[in-house]
């Protein structure tokens, strides 16, 4: 079975039907719909980071680079006043991001631990300053997207991206597919080697695996999906700006991933939901919301040692 943990199945059976029905309750209020859409998009991003950090042990503080690149690549390659095909451009953007990740990965993955954190951060900052200083890409203001892509596939147009509800469903579908994709990878023999590398790299080398190569593949996959999330975000709001690339985006995603339960994949959704939920509710209560937010997150990390997903699993899984 693809979703092998009881907690995971339970979560999927609760979350996805609820998310499917959500727009029915919120139809009048597109604010919540778009808020939820953003949460889904960011969950997708956090999920790709969660795979890297929790599953492969590759701790990066530069993942937001790909999030931002997803948007900027779209701006670079798409014509300004013409609707392009969404699926085709998804393919383009993911491939280009993957190629960039491959190159950067070749350099970055030579290091590990704290050095890898620093060097990924350095690359992300390079991208950040490049885009925030470029005239071509609007500097700090970023770039506006005038025409959203159309989504015809074999003559069938399922989603109208200008319709928030349609866009919501597109993101939900993407999120589910991404989750299933990561689960398929983790279940495969490739995933077994990745687990082995995470648990004991030396032993895995001694068994004859080219550890670097495996890490590079994982890094590339996760980065391409991070770019996809950035692409969706760009389409939702109709603009890109350098703040998407900033290290705080990476940091936030990392916090969400840890909060949700590193390496659990579905925990990424939990972490993002809880973080954004806290953010939203505290923001309305007080001006100094960050203070309380920080305290709450520290508290949660202390109580849920393996994240929310880990805590739920402790409650729900049968003890062996």
């Amino acid at each position: 079975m693809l979703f092998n943990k009881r907690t995971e199945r339970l979560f999927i059976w609760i979350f996805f039907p609820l998310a499917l029905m959500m727009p029915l309750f919120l139809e009048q209020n597109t604010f919540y719909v778009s808020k939820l859409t953003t949460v889904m998009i960011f969950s997708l991003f956090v999920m790709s980071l969660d795979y890297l950090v929790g599953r492969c042990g590759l701790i990066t503080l530069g993942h937001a680079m790909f999030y931002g690149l997803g948007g900027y690549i779209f701006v670079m390659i798409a014509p300004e006043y013409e609707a392009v095909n969404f699926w085709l451009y998804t393919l383009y953007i993911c491939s280009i991001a993957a190629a960039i990740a491959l190159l950067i990965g070749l350099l970055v993955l030579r290091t590990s631990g704290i050095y890898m954190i620093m060097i990924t951060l350095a690359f992300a900052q390079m991208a950040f300053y490049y885009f925030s200083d470029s005239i071509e890409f609007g500097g700090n203001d970023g770039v506006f997207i005038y025409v959203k892509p159309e989504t015809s596939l074999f003559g069938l147009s399922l989603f109208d991206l200008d319709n928030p509800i349609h866009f919501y469903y597109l993101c939900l579908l993407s999120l589910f597919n991404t989750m299933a994709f990561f689960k398929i990878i983790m279940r495969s023999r490739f995933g077994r080697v990745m687990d082995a590398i995470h648990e004991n790299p030396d032993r895995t080398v001694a068994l004859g695996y080219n550890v670097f190569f495996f890490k590079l593949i994982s890094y590339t996959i996760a980065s391409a999906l991070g770019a996809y999330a950035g692409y969706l975000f760009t389409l939702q709001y109709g603009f890109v700006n350098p703040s998407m690339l900033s290290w705080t985006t990476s940091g936030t995603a990392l916090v969400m991933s840890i909060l949700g339960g590193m390496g659990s994949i579905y925990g990424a959704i939990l972490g993002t939901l809880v973080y954004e939920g806290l953010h939203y509710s505290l923001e309305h209560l007080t001006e100094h919301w960050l203070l309380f937010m920080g305290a709450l997150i520290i508290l949660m990390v202390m109580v849920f040692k393996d994240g929310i997903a880990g805590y739920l699993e402790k409650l729900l899984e049968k003890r062996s």
Partner: protein
Amino acid sequence: MSNQAILETEGLCKYWGGLKALDNISLKFYEGQLHGVVGPNGAGKSTLLNLLCGHYKPTSGRIIHKGEAIDAIKPWAFARRGIGRSFQKTNIYPKSTCLENCCVAVQRLMGGTFNIFSSRYSQKMLDEIATNALEKVGLLHRRDHIAAQISYGEQRQLEIAMVLATSPGVLLLDEPMAGMGHEESLLIITLLQSLKKEYCIVLVEHDMDAVFELSDQLTVMVDGQHLITGSVDEVRDDARVKEAYLGQGDEVY
């Protein structure tokens, strides 16, 4: 004695700065033999093993496997050529089951690593080979136990099973009996006795009784230098060996 050495070193040196951890070691390892390597602490036994498996790169000298110089290839490529090793400190995947531990090893030979649509939980062939490896070391009853929860001796056995699962030609064993009780040691000795018929084994070990009992060839090393290589009896009677071990009296082993 077979004529062609399966693994051989030529003037192998490893310096750590000014320290000569290993100085000009030329040895030959033959198939179907157990080659014991002994020596006082710091003699360079583990360094030798780490060089032989590609973990360290030699400062100078060559390693020849089946007639090809392999000292420049990557560590993982050593394992691909059939040079498997166990570590001095237990080195397994503690969170996985014993079967899973061996499956990682078997999988490399079986391929299919990049077929992401085949589940790793339904691989009959793979499981079978991995189970066989466990059976060889006598761990069949622990097949589905988490590796961290089995006893220390069993973990060492598991490590040997993992190496066996890669179907190596050469086994490099770094103190497989370290920290083991008497009975567990006996188990390993019996195991090695049966394994040495099929493989070329290089055994670094402190347990003298075990080494004397098992070795076909025995090398004594002192301070990174090669002292003597010969049969167990030759080594036992050699005056220099006695001096190295009992010698000046300023060190206690």
